């Protein structure tokens, strides 16, 4: 019947990778992405298992043993109140990573919604949203975070809000650009032709295809937020003592930096590790998500 037209010569490898598998494969070929991923996972595990790893409670003071350099009992030394720096760094990872991830989720989530509306509907909605983003972006995000933090006061949740606002414009613009990039794709017309509702088109066809740049940007932003949280604590906003947070630990050890460098160095190393790892992974993710056209 119709077989003469088909005459299938199936290629020997019927490649049936899902897109996820293809991305994972490409990532696995990228050494710096792997390193970044491994370090990031390592830090996450530390955060999760903090109660088991930390030898001391993070707020246990031991004034007899304050300002001691690294030793077998305190591998990262002690701070000015005799607290074990190692335990505080370990526990600090919880706060830093949680703040980083949640702030990014919140900021990107809000940004994506605005960007999707602006990109898909265009016209007046687009103009309004973009002007709003212009206003937000005109303020350097650290200043923005500081301002909001001062306005809302200290505390975990307020710090989270303060840090997430800075991430909204970027996610919005990326999402909008992604949508504009696929606006002319015929599969959107095809979806209309088969009676798909606007909602279905946005959720099933537009979002998944415009989302990749947002994902990359979000990954890299976690590191940025962690730095931001550290900066807020450093100037006395954000998370309050005795909560261990890498930034506040650096702030606390600032005056003793000559005599007790370990108080500042170890939290600093961990901040650097987290930011580097996430940036390396984010870079690799960007390359892996880029559809490579061989022909």
């Amino acid at each position, binding site marked *: 019947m119709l077989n003469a037209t088909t*005459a*299938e*010569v199936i*290629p020997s490898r019927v490649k049936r990778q899902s897109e996820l598998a293809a991305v994972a494969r490409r990532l696995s070929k990228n050494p710096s992405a792997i390193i970044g991923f491994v370090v990031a996972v390592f830090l996450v595990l530390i955060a999760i298992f903090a109660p088991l790893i930390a030898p001391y409670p993070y707020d246990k003071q031991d004034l007899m043993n304050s300002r001691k350099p690294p030793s077998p009992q305190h591998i990262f030394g002690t701070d000015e109140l005799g607290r074990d720096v190692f335990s505080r760094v370990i526990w600090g990872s919880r706060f830093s990573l949680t703040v980083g991830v949640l702030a990014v989720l919140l900021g990107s989530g809000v940004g994506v919604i605005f960007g999707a509306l602006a990109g898909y509907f265009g016209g007046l909605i687009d103009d309004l949203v973009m002007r709003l983003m212009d206003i937000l972006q005109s303020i350097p995000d650290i200043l923005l975070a500081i301002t909001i933090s001062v306005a809302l006061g200290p505390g975990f949740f307020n710090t989270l809000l303060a840090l997430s606002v800075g991430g909204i414009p970027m996610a919005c613009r990326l999402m909008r650009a992604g949508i504009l990039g696929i606006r002319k794709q015929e599969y959107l017309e095809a979806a209309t032709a088969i009676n798909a509702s606007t909602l279905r088109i946005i959720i099933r066809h537009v979002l998944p295809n415009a989302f990749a740049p947002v994902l990359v940007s979000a990954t890299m932003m976690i590191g940025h937020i962690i730095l931001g949280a550290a900066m807020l604590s450093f100037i006395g906003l954000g998370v309050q003592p005795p909560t261990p947070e890498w930034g506040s630990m650096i702030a606390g050890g600032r005056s003793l930096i000559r005599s007790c460098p370990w108080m500042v160095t170890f939290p600093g190393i961990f901040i650097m590790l987290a930011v580097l790892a996430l940036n390396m992974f984010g870079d690799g993710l960007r390359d892996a998500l880029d559809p*490579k056209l061989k022909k």
Partner: protein
Amino acid sequence: MALTNSAFLSVRDLVVEYTAEDQVIHAVNGVSFDLERGKTLGLVGETGAGKTSIAKAIMRILPDPPARIRSGEIYLDGEDLLKLSEKEMRKIRGRKVSMIFQDPMTALNPIMKVGAQISEVIRLHNKVTGREARERTVLMLERVGIPGDRADDYPHQFSGGMKQRVVIAMALACNPELLIADEPTTALDVTIQAQVLEMINKLKSDFNTSMIMISHNLGVVAEVCDDLAVVYAGEIVELGSKEAVFDRPAHPYTRGLFGAVPKLYDDRERLSPILGLPPDPSNLPQGCHFSPRCPYATDPCRNDKIPLREIEPGHFSRCIQVIRPEG
């Protein structure tokens, strides 16, 4: 045509590979052909056959990596282009050999006036004053049917057909001896295509330029070419004069192409498509690359490397079957 050593352009056993991730893509697999002065050779084949890779190899503009000219020789007027340094090659590109690409939209710099782009090419290869270059530019534009006063316009002010004519003017500005045109009219409307092809024909005969015309469109090739090379999976499968190949196509792929094309003056009910798909260039079949799709394939076809055979003077086919012409 014969594979002699006295031709203007002589390509011998050209092999080009692309390395991507973990695979090697065999884009060009031992291609040889000659081109005489003033003649036009058509390179015909479908997407991925390797025609553009051949052209870019001659111009030595293949991106390296991922492409690599593995082996072969390309003699232009007696000189092996593959042995020249990049500096020497720069003197040849645009001057002795010029190339026109398929997409006129992207071939021109959008922020430069078209006259300036043409003058740039002229001044790169000739010691002339600004004014002399400008004069020559205006002359070239009028030669391709564009009023000289448009030299100060930007590319976006021209239509697709006119842009392509500007590109052709740029390519011919230094009066090259060899012009390589890669699907120059594919992106153009049929009536504009007719204009551009006619113009190319006229310019060719005015300047006695040799030309390689790459196309997947047999009709375009018929309009412009003297000789024809049919390319499949990186190899030339048929080579000969236009008359020989059009009137007596010998290779099953060539015949398949003719059978698959709907013709303007033909009343067949159904087309005869070539069954199956072109092969994966990273995983070519052993033996004849076309054998999986060939209705005449036998075991020797599938297992042995098939050489080009001269089936009549000047007409070659890479096939060991003798196929009776259709009655």
